[in-house]
């Protein structure tokens, strides 16, 4: 055990986003003095959301994007067009100033934030539990290594997190998508209810449910129910969607045990061979360039998958020449992401005299329906995918390239057109040793840290699922009664485009095959925990953030008990 009285902090958490905020909250609430180090700029909750509620006529170019600037400085972020804009650009990492190695032929899309709160300010807010089937998948089909944790063990931690962050959704009783602690679901468009009734008759194998979303429909302490203004990624001063800024960081601050430093890039973890522990973190101030270091008893890496893995790799030492805590050699390998994309679109002429009021900042969801009871006979792939849906009433933006002039054009553009209902498949990605990130040997960033590089290829299984999603999207849209079905595509998204990169420091019971044990604790280094997406041993097809949060809370509980027992 390391003596605590001479140390700067009890715990150091690297990163202040979805996982780091949870680590800060849980550890401070258990009485630890915690330092959170965030490489991004400082950002005040509420007052820092400079684009919030700005109408289109206030935006630069009234919302037309500055193309040259985006091409030169945000070539990856600009692809996240549903989230990235002039109303929040300062929240994103400038890619020109902070490069990584991009293979022009097969680019990896690494999306980074540059603020306290991390990507929890910018995320899609989709919040789903994994199922028993997800945790068993590796063991059953032999891809990757078995998960050391099952659904029953993590379920109480899912509940713990859901109650605190606030998740709206509808209970369905589906084994492949377990229900959680839900606030009342958001309303549905009349068209969506029409579609649901038709699917119940014509595609009964498919369930249409409310997207489970970390947005409040009921007030929580210090946070208000959604006011339906629309564009969440500009930030929400009422804290209506979950972000660490709105939720976990204020809770941590309230304990009096939190110290948070922005502009603090963690360069390296120092391993002490004598105690076989991490002793210090070495930090670069991104504004002044000054270097400093801090000591603590335990260290939580929550910097996001790629950044945490980069930090471990850059902390190689005599004891760990291939990267800190990497005696297994798997660090950086088995990287996964979700392939996603447009699988099909239906144009609907139903409910034309029904409209809407308010901007619902989420869609509906069709949970996985393939390979649920063993292998489907007609499936040329293993595992499965789900559909995220979007409903919109067409308006001038979807028809401004019409011919004609004058009052007739003006009148046609100002009125609503038909409904559109789209399906986007999110497919599970298999863990493969060859999909990896590594440190460049000759390229460093402005701070002298080696740049990250990637090698990533989708497998035939993911390709087959994208094709299957397109076929079933067409079936579902026809069953839903679309007047016109526009087929989607089976194109593969760029690796990383799902912004669900994960798996590069996976957990498993066998120290020879995994970086982390079942408690997110490094097999090799007992006072080191990694609880962002790095620990993921497989990917499921559902959005992963809730699972990161649940494992983070569980790892904090374990770490504090181990500290109390004198085991760390």
């Amino acid at each position: 055990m390391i003596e605590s009285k001479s140390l700067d902090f009890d715990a150091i958490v690297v990163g202040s986003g979805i996982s780091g905020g949870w680590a800060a909250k849980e550890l401070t609430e258990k009485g630890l003095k915690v330092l959170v180090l965030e490489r991004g700029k400082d950002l005040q909750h509420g007052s820092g959301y400079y684009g919030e509620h700005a109408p289109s006529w206030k935006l630069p170019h009234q919302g037309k994007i500055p193309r040259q600037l985006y091409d030169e400085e945000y070539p990856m972020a600009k692809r996240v067009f549903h989230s990235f804009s002039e109303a929040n650009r300062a929240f994103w990492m400038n890619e020109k100033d902070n490069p990584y190695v991009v293979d022009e032929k097969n680019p990896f899309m690494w999306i980074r934030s540059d603020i306290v709160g991390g990507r929890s300010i910018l995320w899609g807010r989709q919040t789903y539990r994994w199922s028993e089937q997800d945790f068993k998948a590796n063991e059953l089909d032999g891809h990757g290594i078995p998960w050391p944790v099952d659904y029953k063990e993590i379920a109480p931690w899912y509940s713990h997190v859901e109650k605190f962050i606030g998740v709206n959704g509808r209970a369905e009783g589906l084994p492949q998508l377990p229900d959680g602690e839900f606030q009342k679901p958001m309303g549905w468009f009349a068209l969506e209810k029409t579609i649901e009734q038709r699917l119940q008759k014509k595609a009964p194998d498919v369930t249409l449910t409310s997207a489970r979303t970390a947005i409040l429909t009921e007030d929580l302490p210090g946070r208000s129910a959604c006011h339906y203004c629309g564009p969440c990624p500009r930030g929400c001063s009422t804290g209506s969607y979950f972000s660490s800024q709105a939720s976990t960081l204020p809770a941590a601050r309230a304990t009096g045990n939190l110290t948070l430093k922005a502009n603090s890039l963690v360069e390296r973890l120092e391993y002490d061979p004598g105690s076989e522990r991490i002793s210090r973190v070495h930090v670069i101030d991104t504004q002044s360039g000054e270097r400093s270091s801090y000591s603590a008893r335990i260290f939580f890496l929550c910097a996001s998958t790629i950044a945490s893995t980069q930090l471990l790799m850059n902390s190689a030492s005599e004891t760990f020449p291939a990267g800190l805590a990497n005696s297994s050699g798997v660090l950086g390998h088995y990287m996964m992401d979700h392939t996603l994309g447009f699988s099909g679109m239906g144009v609907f002429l139903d409910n034309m005299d029904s409209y809407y009021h308010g901007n619902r900042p989420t869609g509906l969801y069709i949970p996985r329906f393939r390979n649920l009871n063993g292998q489907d006979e007609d499936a040329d792939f293993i595992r499965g995918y789900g559909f995220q849906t979007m409903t919109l009433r067409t308006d001038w933006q979807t028809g401004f390239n019409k011919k004609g002039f004058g009052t007739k054009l003006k009148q046609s553009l100002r009125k609503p057109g038909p409904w559109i209902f789209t399906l986007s498949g999110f497919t599970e990605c298999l863990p493969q040793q060859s999909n990896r990130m590594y440190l460049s040997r000759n390229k460093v960033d402005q701070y002298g840290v080696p740049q990250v590089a990637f090698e990533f290829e989708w497998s035939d299984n993911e390709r087959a699922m994208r094709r299957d999603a397109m076929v079933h999207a067409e079936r579902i849209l026809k069953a839903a009664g679309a007047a016109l079905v526009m087929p989607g595509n089976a194109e593969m998204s760029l690796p990383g485009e799902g912004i669900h990169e994960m798996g590069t420091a996976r957990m498993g019971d066998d120290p020879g095959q995994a970086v982390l044990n079942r408690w997110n604790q490094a097999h090799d280094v007992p006072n080191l925990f990694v609880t962002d997406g790095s620990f993921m041993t497989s990917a499921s097809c559902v959005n992963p953030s809730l699972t990161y949060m649940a494992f983070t809370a569980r790892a904090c509980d374990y770490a504090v008990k181990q500290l109390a027992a004198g085991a760390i």
Partner: protein
Amino acid sequence: MNRREFMQCATLIVTGASASQLGFALSEEQSQYLASAPNYIHTAVSYFNAEQRAIVTAIADVIIPRDETPGAVDAGVPRYIELMVSDWFSDDERAIFDAGLKDLQTRVPLELGRPFVELEKDQQEQILEKLESAAGDSSWYEFGNVLRAFISDAPFICQIKELTVWGFFTSEVGATQVLRHDPMPMEFDGDYPLSPDDSTWSGGLTA
């Protein structure tokens, strides 16, 4: 929090203090709240000469005229077009626009004996219709051409139409007086009555 309380809270946040007083730590260019910034069309610009400005104004007025509701000129669209041509277009796009404008400046008086701005409105519309039928092959007119980048080789008539329609429906006048605007709905009602003459909501920008 009800709607009134919410608006009070939002107003306080936006107007109560300058960004730096609130500990705002983002870059200089982003240090202003967009919601309390001047409207984009109030940005200074001087790219067209008086004759060009008059032609652009006349065209915008043909594309979206004032009828029982305000039109493009009321909404400041000519200024929007001048700003976008000056600040937003690439050099190639600007060259297409400038040539298109020049063509109207020189050809119309030769063919019709009077400058474009002195023609009757239906004559102006006929000229634009001819330009549009000549441009009919442009991919700009493709169906479902929605979430796409600006089409860089689009002809002059498509450029000015896109800027007029976009500039109009995202303007304060167009969004609030021709479309319907509700910045703080406080509810989601997915089955809200729609009469045959109702306009859409403005503010469809998702990001």
